[in-house]
């Protein structure tokens, strides 16, 4: 769609919106890394292939974690690649442990941090039994929320902590690495009579958060939807609800609906061409 507003933006803002400089700089790095293979007249072709691969979302394959998480488009592309590469896990109905899913992630990104996979697993498992088995779709949608909205979730965790301990939710929160998700379940001794926090108050804080911060947040209207169905909720209750919300998944645009997860005719066609008949299952 045409949006004339982009014409009025100052140069650096326009470029920053689509992370143009990120990709140009990465293109040059890739060029330098491969310069033995590229002769003088292959430069333009190299850049063509690079930018085409960015458009198609294949540029994140086997790249380092810092690049994969560098832009929203990179994160969405990575999620999509993970789904397409490993959806047969779901097709066969296999249940895997967190460590097994982490191995799969490392196939696509060698330095993918274990911590992130652990956090995703916690959303599915809702407790500390980290070697429990998870279905592909449960893990995938939880992983999506954890990975795509990492920074947002850090801040949400800090807000939740403050609300639990009765602090003023409107003070500015700077999440440190030790805050948030480790400590969010109160021990029996300090639990208040009611579990979790009040949904409407929680939403107010989140609305402020979305306004204040530049990184990706789920659409506020959909967050409101999630929070309007309940009176109170826990932190992980909230994350589970986010991961199961169809609207949020669609707004993100990386993965199909849960029902269509096994449906990838393009990939099936490509596989059929590669595999000899007797090896297909």
């Amino acid at each position, binding site marked *: 769609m045409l949006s004339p507003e982009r014409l009025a933006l100052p140069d650096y803002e326009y470029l920053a919106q689509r992370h143009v400089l990120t990709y140009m700089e990465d293109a040059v790095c890739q060029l330098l890394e491969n310069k033995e293979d590229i002769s003088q007249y292959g430069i333009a*072709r190299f*850049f*063509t292939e690079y930018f085409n691969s960015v458009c198609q979302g294949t540029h994140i394959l086997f790249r380092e974690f810092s690049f994969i998480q560098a832009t929203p488009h990179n994160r969405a592309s990575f999620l999509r690649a993970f789904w397409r590469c490993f959806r047969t896990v779901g097709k066969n109905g296999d249940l895997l442990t967190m460590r097994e899913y982490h191995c799969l992630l490392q196939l696509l990104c060698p330095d993918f941090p274990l911590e992130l996979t652990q956090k995703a697993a916690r959303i599915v498992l809702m407790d500390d039994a980290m070697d429990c088995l998870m279905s592909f779709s449960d893990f995938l949608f939880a992983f999506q929320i954890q990975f795509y909205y990492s920074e947002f979730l850090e801040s949400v965790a800090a807000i939740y902590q403050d609300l639990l301990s009765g602090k003023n939710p409107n003070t500015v929160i700077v999440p440190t690495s030790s805050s948030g998700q480790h400590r969010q379940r109160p021990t029996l001794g300090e639990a208040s009579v009611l579990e979790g926090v009040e949904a409407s108050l929680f939403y107010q804080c989140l609305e402020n958060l979305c306004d204040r911060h530049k990184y990706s947040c789920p659409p506020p209207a959909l967050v409101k939807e999630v929070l309007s169905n309940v009176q109170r909720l826990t932190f992980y209750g909230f994350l589970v609800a986010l991961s199961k919300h169809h609207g949020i998944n669609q707004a993100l645009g990386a993965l199909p609906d849960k029902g269509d997860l096994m449906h990838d005719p393009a990939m099936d066609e490509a596989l059929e061409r590669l595999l000899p008949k007797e090896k297909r299952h």
Partner: protein
Amino acid sequence: MATVEKRRLAVSQAAGFTDSGRPGASRTAAMTESEEDFLRQVGVTEMLRTALLKVLEARPEEPIAFLAHYFENMGLRSPTNGGAGEPPGQLLLQQQRLGRALWHLRLAHHSQRTAFNNNVGVAYECLSASGRKKKPGLDGRTYSELLKRICRDGEAPEEVVAPLLRKIQCRDHEAVPLAVFRSGMLTCFVLLEFVARAGALYRLLEDPGLATADRRVGQAVLDTLEGALQASDDTAPARYLEAGSRLGPDSLALAMDRALVARRPSAPMTREEFLEKATALFIAKVKPVG
């Protein structure tokens, strides 16, 4: 990791821009000598700077896709920079000429008048270049094909743009002068934007459940739009966009209110009908060629 950061900063500085929000931007380390030399030798720094300036001039919706096409065309154009290079002039097919001309035409938005006119000039030259079986100059048939292609790529429904094409097309073997070409291109791109905006307007009116708009409301909006267009005597196409945007929210709201209050049974108006009628208002203002 550190070397990657150093390279990034040097590239940004070379291109004349720095992204101040990024980590590492405050470091001042330089790229290694050999890497800088390599980049300069193969012309990468200059190539990227030019590319970046083109992006800023065109301000495309999808800058990454734009860059992919930009480098692809660069590869096609010169043998020294990549790709097979352009085959000898007379063998260049019609389709390639059209594609090349289209690419030039899309480099700048029509509101950036100087850049747009320059690009129109280049596109005209590209289409007018002589071939083995082709005399120099732009013929009516190529011109018509280009117009159709622009409208098709711009996702304007055929029924909607057909009346415009009838008005501004030239006969197949007629020679099309630059002035006619320029005015035709401008009209075409303005029309596409007009259709897009009308579509957006319709989306505001439509009932999401029914995917149609109330006919009274749709008609009221169209009548108000017609009034705004008639008020402007100026025949420059771009003025119609301005007239449309000058539709004050007040006059629109009044018209819509009046329509809803009238006690007539409501019938649905589809998106196609709305677009056809809105576009007809625009096309009525366009002067026919010849």
